[in-house]
């Protein structure tokens, strides 16, 4: 099947006999007579209005994408990849991948970001050449900072001779990935279909090898729209996923010695766990050492119900620690040091002689321009390896290192640690009770009501800017908390939550999110996407009618500059008029209630919303809240 380009007139002439026979004849003719085929192509070019390409390159591209197992491709439609979109829908049957209609490329990417964290595998996005890629950048940066894999496909027409005049030139670029290259793991612009196949499989493998990250493949429009030449020669490489690397065994033994000998060890876990197994491994190590764990929250690393889970005591634990084990911590320096704001006064938290061990692949994936690598911190024992993959060896080494007497001593720490944990939890509950009946609603009360609504479900809190959830909710499953955006780029929360809900839809997991009002307004069109594709999610607005953090920044600057203190609302608040998020959601087909201002009305509203979600639809409750 070297050429499936068929002249429509020839096709119609032969239709009286058999369309299939005509195709076969035509193909046979081209197989045996390349020169004739070339002539036919010229004729077709002359009669472009009649040309039919029944087997375009984009069909093969779909075959390649299907070979990766990608189930969804989120996209705002764009002409530079129109052929690929058409092939996904008509040739691929719009299944695996299914095309998801998004209203902004930033939403497409953020959806894929949330999906990957919930599903444990990447999904695809397509972005229109130049303009779509530019829209996507901030969300890609978030995914990069969060080390989350995303398969990105960009439209482009590299051959200037193939572009139509006007807009198509504006939407074409020599190097589509240039704008993303500082914060993607790999990219390529294939010039043939075989090249496309190999690069897509390579990209998937690179994206999913820890440290993970987004990758970008250009699907050239001319290659996609044109016919496949000599398909018999095309091969889709087999996809195999890399096994994450384990830290050096000698270094692991040394780490075990340091940890066993420590009197006040602390474990800091950030982007450590990739699965429930990762949590289980950390619990095993922590219990063996009786070492408190601070889950920094990049991932769900440790059950909040465990007596060694001590996130709220982070500062005190760091200040007292003699050995600290860091597991994929994005900002190690920031755990041991602070700089006050706005006066930039430095303060060391950790002891001067504290020993540090960091198991991380962070150094294997850094770039120079964007400063997501954080401030450099010297580590006593840096171990280059995947933390989750290294933990079993470390736990075994700890068992070997600790003799009977030492094991008894380690076990004896338990009683005090359990008491400390109970006190920490009691403090959290007491703090949450402050302002319980306040109007606007306290964020602690909002959090407590939401927990009360979902406590009997298998649940996932996909996104939230509220810390109370981690402090208060009993969370034991990896799916419970998905962590933050990575780069703190605003506009992440709602689309990422919808992406996570998509991944959770078939698992029977109820997905909830707490949405900031300023964040949602970046790209609220994702509400329509959730409604259109029947993605069940319970969104709760933390509506404080402000870019609240910026209000506080303005106050700090006014104080620093010795100027009036009552103008911080200018440019930072979202009032006059107040946004009616319930109406906004309803206008896009999302069941909604609000604004809720009475604390007593939150619970009943959430119960109704949960019923909507359980029948497979999105719901939103707008709650007017305290700032934080």
């Amino acid at each position, binding site marked *: 099947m070297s050429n499936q380009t068929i002249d429509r007139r020839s096709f119609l002439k032969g239709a009286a006999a058999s369309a299939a026979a005509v195709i076969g004849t035509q193909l046979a003719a081209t197989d045996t007579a390349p020169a004739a085929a070339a002539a036919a192509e010229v004729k077709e070019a002359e009669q472009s209005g009649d040309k039919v390409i029944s087997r375009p390159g984009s069909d093969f591209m779909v075959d390649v994408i299907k070979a990766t197992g990608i189930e969804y491709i989120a996209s705002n439609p764009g002409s530079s990849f129109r052929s690929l979109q058409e092939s996904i829908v008509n040739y691929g049957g719009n299944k695996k991948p299914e095309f998801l209609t998004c209203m902004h490329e930033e939403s497409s990417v953020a959806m894929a970001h949330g999906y990957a964290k919930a599903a444990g595998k990447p999904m695809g996005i397509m972005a229109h050449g130049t303009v779509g890629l530019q829209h996507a950048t901030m969300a890609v940066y978030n995914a990069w900072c969060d080390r989350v894999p995303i398969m990105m496909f960009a439209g482009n027409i590299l051959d200037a001779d193939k572009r139509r005049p006007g807009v198509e030139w504006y939407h074409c670029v020599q190097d589509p990935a240039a704008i993303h290259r500082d914060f993607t793991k790999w990219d390529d612009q294939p010039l043939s279909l075989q090249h496309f196949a190999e690069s897509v499989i390579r990209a998937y493998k690179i994206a999913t090898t820890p440290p993970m990250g987004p990758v970008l493949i250009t699907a050239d429009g001319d290659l996609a729209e044109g016919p496949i030449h000599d398909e018999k020669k095309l091969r889709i490489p087999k996809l195999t996923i890399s096994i994450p690397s384990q830290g050096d065994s000698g270094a692991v033994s040394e780490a075990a010695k340091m940890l066993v000998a420590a009197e006040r060890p602390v474990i800091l876990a950030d982007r450590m766990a990739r699965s429930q197994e990762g949590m289980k491994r950390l619990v095993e190590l922590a219990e063996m050492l009786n070492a408190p764990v601070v889950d920094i929250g990049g991932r769900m690393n440790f059950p909040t119900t465990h007596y060694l889970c001590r996130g709220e005591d982070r500062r005190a634990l760091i200040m007292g620690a003699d050995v600290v084990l860091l597991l994929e911590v994005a900002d190690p320096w920031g755990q041991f040091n602070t700089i006050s704001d706005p006066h930039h006064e430095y303060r060391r938290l950790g002891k001067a002689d504290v020993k540090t061990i960091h198991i991380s692949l962070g150094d294997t994936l850094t770039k120079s321009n964007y400063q997501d690598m954080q401030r450099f911190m010297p580590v006593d024992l840096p171990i280059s390896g995947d933390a989750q993959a290294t933990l079993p060896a470390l736990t075994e080494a700890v068992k070997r290192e600790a003799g009977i007497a030492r094991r008894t001593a380690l076990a004896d720490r338990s009683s005090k640690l359990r008491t400390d944990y109970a006190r920490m939890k009691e403090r*959290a*509950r*007491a703090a949450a009770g402050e302002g*319980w009946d306040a109007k*606007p609603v306290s*964020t602690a009360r909002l959090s407590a009501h939401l927990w009360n609504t979902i406590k009997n479900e298998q649940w996932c809190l996909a996104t939230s800017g509220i810390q109370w959830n981690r402090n208060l909710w009993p969370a034991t499953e990896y799916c419970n908390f998905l962590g933050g955006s990575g780069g703190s780029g605003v506009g992440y929360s709602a689309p990422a939550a919808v992406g996570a809900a998509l991944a959770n839809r078939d698992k029977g997991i109820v997905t909830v999110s707490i949405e900031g009002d300023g964040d949602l307004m970046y790209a609220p069109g994702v509400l329509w996407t959730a409604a259109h594709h029947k993605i069940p999610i319970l969104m709760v607005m933390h509506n404080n009618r402000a870019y609240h953090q910026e209000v506080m920044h303005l*106050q700090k600057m006014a*104080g620093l500059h010795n100027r009036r203190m009552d103008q911080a609302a200018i440019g930072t608040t979202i009032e006059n008029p107040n946004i009616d998020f319930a109406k906004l959601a309803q206008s896009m087909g999302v069941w909604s209630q609000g604004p809720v201002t009475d604390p007593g009305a939150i619970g009943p509203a959430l119960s109704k919303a949960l019923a909507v979600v359980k029948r497979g639809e999105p719901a939103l409750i707008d709650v007017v809240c*305290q700032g934080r």
Partner: protein
Amino acid sequence: MRILFSAMLMIFGAFAVFAQEQAPAGSAERGYQAYMKYQCYTCHGTVGQGADRGTGPKLAPNPISFEGFVRQLRAPRQDMPAYRKQFVSEQEVADIYAYLKSIKPGPMLKDIPLLNFAGK
């Protein structure tokens, strides 16, 4: 040394009580307006309950002494911005303090069923 420390504590305590008593008269109603105008609520909550993620500590009920309150307001420790006299008058400070003192305690923790789940 211990005696000296105890004596200092007593003196400081007595001074605090004196300072508390010396808090100028203020209007809780005007204080609420000033509290909102100067956006104290953004970090400390509208009823002084404090805020999530360590943004601002709890101020009420039972605020610290007036002297300590003024000291922190005018020349703050840590990240809080300074609210100086030329922008927040002494009367406004007294009013804000009166508002904080007027805030009544909320329900007891044991009486909030929604908070009796965590860590158990």
